[in-house]
């Protein structure tokens, strides 16, 4: 089947060329990082994780969100998702792959990555995260590919794949829960030490994933002449809307607990992120932009459900993705380190090398997604 990714028109190949160029730039930057160490990044003694781990966190959510199409289609027999379910699974495959790449990019000793399996320590949440992420990647490759292969041959998928698909539903929830537990179990970081973190992660993931799927559907409609169907898109929009509402509800709950209880430690990180702390307010414009765009997008989503409009839907979905990317892909991780355990406010600025490595990894993910979707669309159209 894979040969279907090797044929395409000019637009397809220009897109692939752009991604390859970004990947090459990323590889060059990564070679610099390998030579000189992580000092080439903006991370330091106080803010010891940066964009790499933040992207990882955001993308685990994207990977997990495949469950929002798999569950209605396979468990509730919601036929309208027949064309989009494979797109969701392949989105999960590419997102899970680059999650692993972001972890490796962040490691001081990437050559020792297999120590995690060689010297397993189940006390550590990292151990579990590596297990569930790799497992999820495998599950989605196997189930997505097998079902597609069957469709190409015009036969029904083999029976053994059904349990794997059902497993993927539970597994999806587990990957984002474990990822939240990486943070929610650290005793000294108030922004993370909250039981609402895992539910909030899931809510934001289930808002971002379906929004991305809607955007991808429109792209496929325009460039690949492939239509997943209006009904599927509208259902996804509903899922994204309510998940986004749940997310902002959780954010509000965080604010209430921190500011009503008035405990300084609980307030500090939120103060830094949204109002500035100790005269430092680098992320304040980002966070308000995220908040305003996010809530506005939810309102547009609700409005366009009464008066359907493709333009508004695209705007709202993009808004949700951008808003929650800032929230999770920037604010949550960096905010967790500010102030430091010594109550110092140290700011973090990603470097050019760090940004190009990040773009390179995203490009790898997009390239995988492009190739997989090319295959899926070709098979679906022939069927």
């Amino acid at each position, binding site marked *: 089947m894979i040969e279907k990714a090797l044929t395409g028109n000019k637009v397809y190949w220009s897109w692939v060329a752009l991604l390859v160029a970004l990947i090459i730039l990323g590889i060059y930057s990564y070679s610099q990082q390998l030579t*000189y*160490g*992580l*000092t080439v990044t*903006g*991370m*330091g*003694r*106080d803010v*010891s*994780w940066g964009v790499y781990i933040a992207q990882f966190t955001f993308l685990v959510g994207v990977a997990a969100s495949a469950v929002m199409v798999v569950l209605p289609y396979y468990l509730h027999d919601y036929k309208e998702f027949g064309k989009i379910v494979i797109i969701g699974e392949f989105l999960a495959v590419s997102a899970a792959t680059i999650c692993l790449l972001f*972890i490796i990019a*962040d*490691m*001081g*000793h990437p050559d*020792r*990555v297999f*120590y*995690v399996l*060689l*010297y397993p*320590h189940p*006390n*550590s*949440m*990292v*151990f579990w995260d*590596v297990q569930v992420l790799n497992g999820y990647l495998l599950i989605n490759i196997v189930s997505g590919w097998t079902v597609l292969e069957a469709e190409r041959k015009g036969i029904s998928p083999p029976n053994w794949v059904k349990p794997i698909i059902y497993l993927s539903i539970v597994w999806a929830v587990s990957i984002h829960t474990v990822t939240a537990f*990486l*943070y929610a*179990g*650290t*005793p*000294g*970081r108030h922004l993370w030490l909250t039981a609402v973190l895992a539910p909030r992660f899931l809510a934001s993931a289930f808002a971002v994933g379906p929004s991305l799927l809607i955007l991808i559907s429109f792209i496929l409609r325009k460039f690949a002449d492939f239509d997943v169907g209006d009904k599927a898109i509208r259902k996804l929009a509903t899922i994204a809307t309510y998940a986004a509402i749940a997310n902002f509800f959780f954010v509000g709950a965080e604010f209430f607990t921190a500011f009503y209880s008035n405990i300084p*430690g609980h307030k500090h990180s939120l103060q830094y992120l949204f109002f500035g702390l100790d005269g430092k307010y680098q992320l304040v414009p980002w966070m308000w932009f995220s908040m305003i765009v996010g809530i506005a997008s939810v309102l547009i989503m609700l409005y366009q459900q009464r008066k359907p409009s493709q333009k508004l839907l695209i705007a709202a979905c993009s808004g949700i993705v951008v808003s929650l990317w800032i929230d999770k892909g920037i604010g949550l991780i960096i905010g*967790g*380190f500010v102030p*430091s*355990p*010594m*109550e*110092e406010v*140290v700011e973090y600025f990603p470097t050019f090398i760090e940004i190009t490595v990040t773009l390179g990894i995203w490009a790898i993910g997009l390239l995988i997604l492009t190739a997989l979707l090319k295959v899926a669309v070709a098979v679906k159209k022939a069927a």
Partner: protein
Amino acid sequence: MIENRRKFLKKSAGVLAGAGVVSGFISKYSTGFATASTEKPVAEKGIRWGMVIDMRKCVDGCVKCIDVCHVTHNVPEFDNPKDEIKWIWKSDYAKVFPSKSQQFVSAETKQKPFLTMCNHCADPPCVMACPTGATFKRKDGIVEMDFHRCIGCRFCMAACPYGSRSFNWRDPRPAIEDITQEYPTREKGVVEKCNFCSERLAKGQQPACVEACPEKVLTFGNLYDKKTEIRQILKDNPTIQRKPELGTNPSVFYIT
């Protein structure tokens, strides 16, 4: 009928077994204390190395303990605070004890330089977080690092509530003035911190900082031995630990 009864018995046995497991967990996680104290009862057996820092005796501007530690352990000197590596250092009282009362105290008290280092917690969050066992707690209570096992994921740094851990963001060797042969240098990409001079303890020596201090600010000893000097000091003086409310049980105590 008999069939049904058998089923019922099976089910109730399952429920009872489950309840047994749960109650086992409950007894494991309950402290046995009537009050909700942060302190955990410990069986004082064997060795638990600890330190008392008497800040009444510590002289402002004196950095003898810091210098000797950093020379002994080949700790590099970087100008950029981002790359900094610290095993023992001085920071303001208000930063070392952010949750202690700061009201109505003078600026001098708030900014009084306090010595700080790894607390060698009895319940170390860094050890919980480490995915490979590169950081581990020894039988004598020392939280130790295996530089060859560390993958540089920096989870321990996120988990440590005291900011006691440093990462080698770059190759440390060019930034060490005189390399000491008695202790290994590190390479880029691994985490390091104070080790209570475990290499010196093995030879029967006191930690380098304790030995170097002319004012006898630092007292080192076995916290589980009631006859030691450190236990006498802990008995006779009011002492505080950093963030005891987190349940990490630090082995470093302060007299303020």
